[in-house]
């Protein structure tokens, strides 16, 4: 393997990243806004105590939230302490890491509309399915 091949390969990968810098910068700046303006208290206030409704709210609010996963555990733990259903909390912490409304424009620009739509739709449906399956299995185990 020649050194020039490696240099050319690295040049290509740096160039690929550089071309996406405006999009990446935009997404990172957007995550800052979401983190500050959409507070954990605001998210907690969306839940009502009705399991099905809360599971949907958990999925949607987890999907629009951004930040480190431990923040979703903190909020999820708080919700459980307030007698919220495990279905809602599981949906919330799972959609936090699998759905990303903020990064949709970036995903769309790179992968195209069809891929982005199918992937996110499937991720949304599977958040609901996995939440249901997890809680049911947990109840069986208990």
């Amino acid at each position: 393997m020649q050194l020039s091949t490696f240099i050319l390969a690295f040049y290509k990968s740096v160039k690929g990243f550089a071309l996406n810098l405006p999009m990446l910068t935009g997404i990172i700046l957007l995550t800052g806004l979401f983190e500050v303006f959409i507070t954990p208290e605001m998210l907690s206030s969306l839940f009502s105590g009705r399991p099905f409704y809360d599971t949907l709210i958990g999925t949607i609010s987890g999907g629009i939230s951004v930040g480190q996963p431990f923040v979703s555990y903190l909020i999820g733990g708080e919700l459980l302490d307030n007698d919220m259903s495990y279905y809602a909390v599981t949906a919330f912490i799972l959609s936090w890491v699998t759905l990303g409304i903020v990064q949709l424009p970036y995903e769309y620009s790179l992968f195209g509309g069809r891929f982005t739509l199918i992937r996110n739709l499937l991720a949304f449906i599977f958040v609901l399915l996995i939440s249901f399956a997890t809680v049911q299995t947990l109840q069986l185990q208990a």
Partner: protein
Amino acid sequence: MITKTGNTQPKAKLSGRYLLLLVALSYALLYCYYPDKTLQALLKSLSTLLHLLPVFLAVIVLMGIFTALMNAKKVSKLLGKQSGLRGWLIALIGGILSHGSSYIWYQMLVDLRKQKVSDGLIVTFLYTRAIKLPWLPLMVSYFGYAFTVILMFYIIIGALAQGLIVEKLSSQN
């Protein structure tokens, strides 16, 4: 641009200029009403950027090594439609081990996709990223072992199922 194989490639261009402009305008507008919070958001973004820099570098290096060592034929054999069980295992383990936000990995995944890596494997890789190894101890402390193990198990099953659905949809297309 015409490649060796005779394919026409579109000229690479900057992506996300309008999004960046829109976000910058949002910052300017929000600063007028909530200066403290907006500055806090800017600092949070900078901190995120600093946190992500090592991962960016790792991804660039990985992409470089991948491009240098793997040609389209090799990639297709390892991760293409005919890759079989090995391809699914690579996608699963790669997703679990990959670090940082999903969007950092998008560029690398797009490059792999151009080398005929199937969409199903990309979807599986992205979904298994829900398993955050460094945060597992914290998850256990909040929700218990049973919950964590069961959830991880279903995430893996879900990731594979989604990958297979996407494969099926792609083959129908």
